[in-house]
């Protein structure tokens, strides 16, 4: 099992953001995570990535407990967040060289990763001058270097153009072909068409199992405008 979350809950002060998420993701499976703003999707992703500690419940990544075996989990997980996580005063290449050293991967792959994301023309330019889309591409290049077994993508298509979206989907498919798994936070299913195996909706801090009423709501509900089918395997 790539990801096994059992009753994962988290509170900030007195407010429970997650109230017990149960989610299992098999190796080779691509899961889309849907839900309203503030429903706890990103909080859940951060817990899986070891960036936040769960207030209750257990979560395992390839058998390693995210609470007690964080370092093992970090070897498996690649997290693509809202923020690029880059250093403005380093060049594109230097950012990747730093990441490669921290990850313990050979820096020989850096040029190939930069070429893959179409940033070879700005290899030696500082990230400070990059557009938001270019920064996202560079963050993707870092993931390509890492080649994680479990990919956590938090709104990965933000700021990406059509070519960038194709690039992202190509990477997800490649990882999938190699047996990796992914959890992708989405607000719109269209860019992830053909990439996601099933979707899971979080509502009020819990995995929401859709009912007929979800399909009769007006378009304001994400459950109504997307396809919540395939909630099997979650509770």
């Amino acid at each position, binding site marked *: 099992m790539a990801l096994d979350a059992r009753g994962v809950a988290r509170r900030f002060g007195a407010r429970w953001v997650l109230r017990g998420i149960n989610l299992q993701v098999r190796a080779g499976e691509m899961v889309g995570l849907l839900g309203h703003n503030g429903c706890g999707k990103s909080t859940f992703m951060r817990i899986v990535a070891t960036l936040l500690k769960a207030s209750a419940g257990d979560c395992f990544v390839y058998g390693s407990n995210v609470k007690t075996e964080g370092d093992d989990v970090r070897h498996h997980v690649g997290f693509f*967040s809202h923020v690029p996580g880059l250093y403005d005063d380093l060049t594109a290449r230097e950012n990747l060289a*730093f990441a490669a*050293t921290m990850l313990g991967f050979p820096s020989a792959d850096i040029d190939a990763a930069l070429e893959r994301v179409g940033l070879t023309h700005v290899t030696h330019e500082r990230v400070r001058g990059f557009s938001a889309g270019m920064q996202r591409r560079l963050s993707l290049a870092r993931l390509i270097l890492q080649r994680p077994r479990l990919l956590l993508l938090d709104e990965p298509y933000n700021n990406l153009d059509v070519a960038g979206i194709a690039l992202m989907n190509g990477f997800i498919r490649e990882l999938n072909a190699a047996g990796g798994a992914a959890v992708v936070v989405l607000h719109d299913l269209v860019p992830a068409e053909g990439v996601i195996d099933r979707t899971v909706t979080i509502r009020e801090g819990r995995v929401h199992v859709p009912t007929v009423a979800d399909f009769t709501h007006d378009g304001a509900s994400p459950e109504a405008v997307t396809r919540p089918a395939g909630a099997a395997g979650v509770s």
Partner: protein
Amino acid sequence: MAFRDDIRRTRAIVWKDLTTERRSKAGFSAVAALGVTILVLFGLALGPDGKALQNAAAGALWLAILFASVLAFNRSYQVELDGGALEALLLYPGSRWAIFAGKLIANLIFVMAMLVIVVTVGIVLFDVRIPAQWPSIVGIMMLGVVGIVALGTFYAAMSSRSRAREVLLPLLLYPMLIPVLLASMEATKAFLFGDLLSASGAWVQMLSLFDVIFLVATFLAFEYVIEV
């Protein structure tokens, strides 16, 4: 093998911090300028009395180093907070102490570089006659800076997640640094005036002890303050 990997990560963080600092330029200039300004203000407050200036030199110097260093500590984590780099840093595998060690060494180099400028200005401004035991004074400065930087780097990490970090850091740091400052000032003063009463030995021992305690405690506790 894991230890070697962590050493490699520490080196990478030192390189990254110093490179970003060197390129941004504004950071070092601001910190050094603040240190010099504090010395000038002390000089103006003490007036033209040469003896009073010499007596106050050690205290003024250490206070200038302390106040300017706090700016440096805040900056060292600001670089990580811009663009969410701290998240990315925490996502890399490896021991947390490697991150702390990298930040600590980078801050040490940064503060030492600032120290050279501040001490040079202090010598001129306070009319300090360089004594024969100047290598001992350099040693004391190193010990004092290690204590300040160890605690400063630790508390900067602790306050980095707070919105009021600029206020929080000095509030946490200054009271904890009183023993280090006191020992550094007294030992520096003793050597500046020839250490006639052989008072420096006790202060140096105290300073060394505080350095060891602070280094061990901050390395052990860093993991708990950086994670949420």
